Each structure stands twice: as structure tokens, then as C-alpha cells.
């Protein structure tokens, strides 16, 4: 048997048999499941309603009973109402705050809003503050209309909402309903998973290399196999672990999700992050039907195969470099100086994720999805929005070239690094290794 496969086989079996693999494999989907469900559940938990005293000299809030998360109790707006209210607030813990709006001579709402105050005895949430503010703004707006002699109800009637369905007019003239929200969710999930997996498993390669170096077995092994075979075998073996874990996770996550959403959340809410994202994207109407039609517009086989490709490509690209770092140091603590420049592009691609989602066709999106160090994550984000075939082909071929290149560089560092003990390395020396023939 080719020693490469013997090495890969060992890397695979020793990891898969570890208890930590079993635990991670079981806890992974639980974790992901919770990641999907918990935020949805949390937003559903109603915050205890606050009670606010209101001293309103301006009569701006007359007739209002409260806002979401707080109810109002008006005090007679006498001259001493403010000090009375403050006294109540101090003596009675039943009240959470006091909203004070002064009167103005000409009733200018802007001045009222500017000099209004909210005295709080407990922490009032930002959301509550905001809803009070928007209520005031609304009231001031109506007041201004009235001052200008316009009936607010007429203004209200003349408002209308537009909800245009974006239709992708494809090359073949096929009209497809587009659902930006769904695409964003899909792109983000794809990019994020590539990021997590590349990080997770590339780090495992590095740990493995360091383990071989610190346990001093590496020279024994490379007297039987070439250093490159050992490195590649490790990369392949750990990739196998990654795939196995990934497929188990996907399966279990699916099962768990179905179980959770059908039992825990039956009917009360739909925790799907897809929908919550869609809500954010401003498409709260007729979500169900649109999702289904939008789903049909997305090329799932393409995205799935691209996911596998970009995961493997990104993993190989970074894995080789991580292996080189592992070989160049004596202990994991020494990896910091080399890890930062390596992980920077990966982190950067997550940072630009929102920008890419906002405009998938921008130059930023284009370049980040072409350059091999960021393309695995960024291309996954772009993909659901549709990417020209030539861009995808360019990105993929560059990624292949990229990992061939990093593997070549890594192999040169690796074969020298693994035999070197107790030496603090500099970039200058690394560069020498890369250039030297042996």
C-alpha cells in the first residue's frame, strides 16, 4: 500500500476513534440546533412591561396609554407635578421611570422634544427608549401638520406601501422570482460554514504536526515516508474526518431541527433564520409563498457542489500553510506570530460578508471572491445571487493554483522545520527555506 494512504488512514482512524470526536459529533448538531432555535425563542420572550409616570405639560401624549413594553400613568400637569412625580418614583418601587414633557409658549413640538426628559429608576432597554422616541416623533409630526392646518388623518390616508417582487429575467428569458432574503441567508450560511470548517480542520493539521514534532516521532516516520507524503497524508486524513463529521452533522442537524420545530415550536412561531432575515430585508408579506417560489430560483446542486469544492480548496490552501507553521515551531504557544498573517485574510472575508451581501456584484465582492485566500468564504456568499460562469471558473482555477502553491511552499518549510528543535524562527529564515533547494 502506498505509504501516503497508510498515513492518511492512521490520521483518520485515530481521530475518529477519539472520544472528543464522538462528543463533538453529537454536540455539534445540538449546538447548531440551539444556534438556530435559541435566538428565535429569545426574541419571543416578552420583556416585563415597565410602568412609567408621565408629566405632560405639552399635552402631546394626551390619550396615549403607553408604548410596547411600557404603560403610561398620567399625573395631573400642575406646576408641582414634576416634583410630585419624582417623590412617587423615590418612595414607590412600583414605578420604573418618569417621562417629563414641558410646555412651550408657542407649542413648538421640536422644543418640547428637545427639553423632554426620562427619569429612570431601573434599566430601561434601548428598545423601550426607541419606541418612546418614535411615539414622540409621531406625535410631534402630527402636531406640526395640525399647526400647518393639515389634518393628519388625510396624510395617513394618502400613504401607500410598495412591495415589488424582484424578478430575475434570466438569459433564457425565464422569469424567476427572486428572494434576496433567502439568498442572503443561504450565502451567509455557506460562507460561514466554509470559514468554520477551514479554521477547525486546518488547526487540527497544525496540532497534529506539532504533536509529531514534540513527541519526537517525526524523524522515525520520515525515515520510512517522504516528508511530503507525511504532510499530505495528514491533510488527507483530517479532511476525511472533516467530511465524515460534516455529513453526520448535516444529517443530525436536519433531524434535530425537524424534531425541535415540530414539537417545541409547533405553530407558535417559525424560528427559521431564513424568514427572520427576510423580515429584515423588508419582505414580511406573503413570505411562505415567496420562499417556495424563490427556492425554485436557486441552483441548489450548484451551491452544494460549490460548497464542497470551496471547503476542500480552502482547507487545502490553509491546511498546508498551517502544517508549515506547525513544523516551524516547537510548541503551540509559539505559533502566534505566524498564525496572525495566515488567518487575517480568512477573518477579513467574514468581515466583508455584509458588504458582499449588500452588493454581490461590486468590485469588492468580485476581487474577494477571486483571490484564493478569501474566495472560499466570499464566493459562497455571492453564489446564491448568481455569479457569471467565467468568474466562478476563474475563482475555482485560482483556488486550485492557490493550494498547489501553498502546498509547494509548505512542503519546503515542512521538511526542514520538522527536523529542527529548540530554535526560534524568523520570517527571514523561513524565506531562506522556501528558496533553498534542500
Amino acid at each position, binding site marked *: *500500500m502506498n*505509504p501516503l494512504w*497508510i*498515513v492518511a488512514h*492512521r490520521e483518520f482512524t*485515530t481521530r475518529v476513534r477519539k472520544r472528543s470526536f464522538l462528543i463533538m459529533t453529537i454536540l455539534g448538531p445540538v449546538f447548531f440546533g440551539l444556534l438556530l432555535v435559541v435566538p428565535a425563542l429569545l426574541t419571543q420572550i416578552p420583556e416585563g412591561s415597565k410602568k412609567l409616570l408621565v408629566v405632560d405639560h405639552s399635552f402631546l401624549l394626551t390619550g396615549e396609554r403607553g408604548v410596547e413594553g411600557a404603560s403610561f400613568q398620567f399625573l395631573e400637569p400642575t406646576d408641582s407635578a414634576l416634583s410630585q412625580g419624582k417623590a412617587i418614583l423615590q418612595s414607590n418601587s412600583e414605578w420604573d421611570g418618569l417621562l417629563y414633557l414641558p410646555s412651550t409658549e408657542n407649542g413648538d413640538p421640536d422644543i418640547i422634544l428637545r427639553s423632554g426628559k426620562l427619569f429612570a429608576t431601573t434599566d430601561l432597554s434601548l428598545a423601550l427608549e426607541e419606541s418612546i422616541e418614535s411615539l414622540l416623533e409621531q406625535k410631534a409630526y402630527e402636531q406640526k401638520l395640525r399647526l400647518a392646518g393639515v389634518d393628519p388623518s388625510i396624510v395617513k390616508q394618502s400613504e401607500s406601501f410598495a412591495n415589488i417582487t424582484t424578478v430575475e429575467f434570466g438569459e433564457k428569458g425565464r422569469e424567476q422570482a427572486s428572494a434576496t432574503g433567502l439568498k442572503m441567508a443561504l450565502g451567509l450560511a455557506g460562507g460561514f460554514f466554509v470559514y468554520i470548517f477551514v479554521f477547525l480542520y486546518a488547526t487540527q493539521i497544525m496540532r497534529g504536526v506539532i*504533536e*509529531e514534532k514534540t*513527541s*519526537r*516521532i517525526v*524523524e*522515525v*516516520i*520520515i*525515515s*520510512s*515516508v517522504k*516528508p511530503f507524503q507525511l504532510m499530505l497524508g495528514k491533510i488527507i486524513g483530517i479532511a476525511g474526518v472533516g467530511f465524515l463529521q460534516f455529513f453526520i452533522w448535516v444529517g443530525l442537524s436536519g433531524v434535530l431541527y425537524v424534531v425541535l420545530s415540530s414539537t417545541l415550536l409547533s405553530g407558535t412561531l417559525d424560528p427559521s433564520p431564513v424568514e427572520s432575515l427576510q423580515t429584515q430585508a423588508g419582505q414580511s408579506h406573503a413570505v411562505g409563498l415567496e420562499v417556495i417560489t424563490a427556492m425554485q430560483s436557486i441552483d441548489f446542486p450548484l451551491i452544494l457542489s460549490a460548497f464542497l469544492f470551496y471547503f476542500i480548496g480552502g482547507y487545502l490552501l490553509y491546511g498546508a500553510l498551517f502544517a508549515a507553521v506547525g513544523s516551524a515551531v516547537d510548541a503551540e504557544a509559539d505559533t502566534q506570530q505566524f498564525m496572525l498573517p495566515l488567518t487575517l485574510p480568512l477573518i477579513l472575508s467574514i468581515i466583508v460578508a455584509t458588504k458582499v451581501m449588500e452588493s454581490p456584484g461590486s468590485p469588492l465582492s468580485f476581487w474577494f471572491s477571486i483571490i484564493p485566500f478569501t474566495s472560499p468564504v466570499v464566493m459562497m456568499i455571492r453564489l446564491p445571487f448568481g455569479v457569471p460562469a467565467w468568474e466562478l471558473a476563474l475563482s475555482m482555477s485560482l483556488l486550485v493554483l492557490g493550494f498547489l502553491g501553498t502546498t509547494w511552499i509548505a512542503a519546503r518549510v515542512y*521538511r526542514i522545520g520538522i*527536523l529542527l*528543535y529548540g530554535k526560534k524562527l524568523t520570517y527571514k*529564515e523561513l524565506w*531562506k527555506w522556501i528558496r*533553498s533547494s*534542500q
Partner: protein
Amino acid sequence: MIQAVHISKHFSGHTALNDVSLHIPKGSLYGLLGPNGAGKTTFLRILNQIIEPDSGHVLFDGRPLQRKDIAHIGYLPEERGLYKKMAVGEQALYLARLKGLTRAEAKNRLKYWFEKLEIDGWWDKRVEELSKGMAQKIQFVTTVLHQPDVLIFDEPFSGFDPIAAQQIRNEMLALHQAGTTILFSTHRMESVEEMCTHIALINQSRKVLDGSVGDIIRSHRTHTYRITYRTSHDGPMPPEAFSPFVVLSDESLPLGAWQPGRIAHVQLPKEAGLNALLPSLILNAEVLSAEEIVPSMNTIFIQTVQG
């Protein structure tokens, strides 16, 4: 068996090996001696094809060394270890398979060795549960398991307590008896000459001396003899009694000696033997002992390097 021809190797900033040629004969027990940093490990790594020489080449059994020859070589590096978390048996199997043994073959041979070394209870133990000495036994087994024609040990005695070092030495001698060619390096030159058939001295990346131990010692002998004797008057022997041999020194035995007497160092002409001296000595004194001072490897090394 192995012939290194004009091997040179440079690392950034220094020369590890400078035009080193060595011939390691089949069946020899070859000691590669030299101080730390002389280039021994680099040389052994080149033989194991872990690194390549900048210039020069290695012949294995008369033809250029090839990748497949690793199956005929067993190597125990100076920096040696095992996967700590892996079970002993599985690990030994893994290393054996990397050397080209099939699983079944490896299992059979391991069984034999584990029984021989009385370690068959360790198969499922993890390496981290073993003592250092136990781990070294496993390393030794995995090095010899594929029955290599050539065994290469880098500093095999370093890190061992004296008893374990003796065990390793005995195993090496046994393998040598069985016909295996053994090459090992050490920076401790004492006590090596009596176990090696051949040695080479490497100093500052150059080979300074090599050959069979007998030849080397013969070529470095000074024909100096140490003779202890006692005259009837407890004084020195008349100088003419040693004639025509050169007397280098003649002193009383130290006070702590268990019997009174004197000790003389004399140098004999190259063609003469001890027998030529003894008759006149016996006439003048009681000879307590007489022996040639054979230069130690250490002495030869220092002489060679300094001279």
C-alpha cells in the same frame, strides 16, 4: 554495504559535511565518532534519505541508493519518540507497515518480539502510560522489526541509564553476530573501541580518520610499554638494564599502591617486541607487570585533530 562518496552538505550559514567518503563493510559494527555538532546526524540522515547531499552520492550494495532501499534500513534517530496517545501494538503495526510489511506479517513478527522481550501485555496500553525505558524497548523493536540488512542508530546510548545502555549494547552485539550491518554514532568515545569492528572519526564536518579498529590502533601505537617492577633494594633499576630501549620515565609507585615498587615507561623500537626487553629486566628485578599502552580512541582523536 554502504559507500558514501564525497558527500558535502551545507546549511544556511554553515557546512555540516565537507567531502566525506566512508565505506561501511557488510557485517561490520561501525562506530561513527565525533564531538557534538561534527556532522554525524546529518550524515546518518543522508543515508536514510531524509535529506539529500549537496554533492556526492551514496552506494547501497554497490549501486546508487534508491527510495526503495529504506525497506532494508532500520533507523533509530537521536530525537526518537512515539505517538503518546496511540496504543503500543497499533503504533508498532503502523510503523512496520510504513516500512512495507503487510499487516499480517507485521503482527506475527511483533508477537514474536513482544514475547521475546516479555512485553506482550502492553499491546493495548497507550504509550503515555509507559516508562521511558519501556518506550525505548518499543522503539527498538519497531526499528528492527522489518529485519533490515542495515541498522542505523543515532546516539543509541544517550538518554539511557547505564543498565539500559548495556541492554541496548547487548542487543546490538547480538544483531551484529546475526550478520546485520550496524552503523551507529556517538559523541562519547570511551568504551566504544571494544565493541566496534570499524570506526570513523568526524570533526568539524570532515572525516579525519576511518578504518578497522585494529588498523587504526596499530597505526597509532607508540610502542610504549608500562612496566612495574621491584628491585631487591627498592630503588630504581640501573638505566642500562633497559638498554637499548628509551626510558621515558621511572618513578616509585604511588604511596597508595598495595605493594612497593616502581613504574617505568619505556619506548621500544618499532620492530622489537616486549620479549626483547624482558630477559634483562628479569635479571635485575622482579617484574610485577608489563603491558603495552594502547592509545584510546579518545587519545587518537585528540592527536589526530590537534596533530
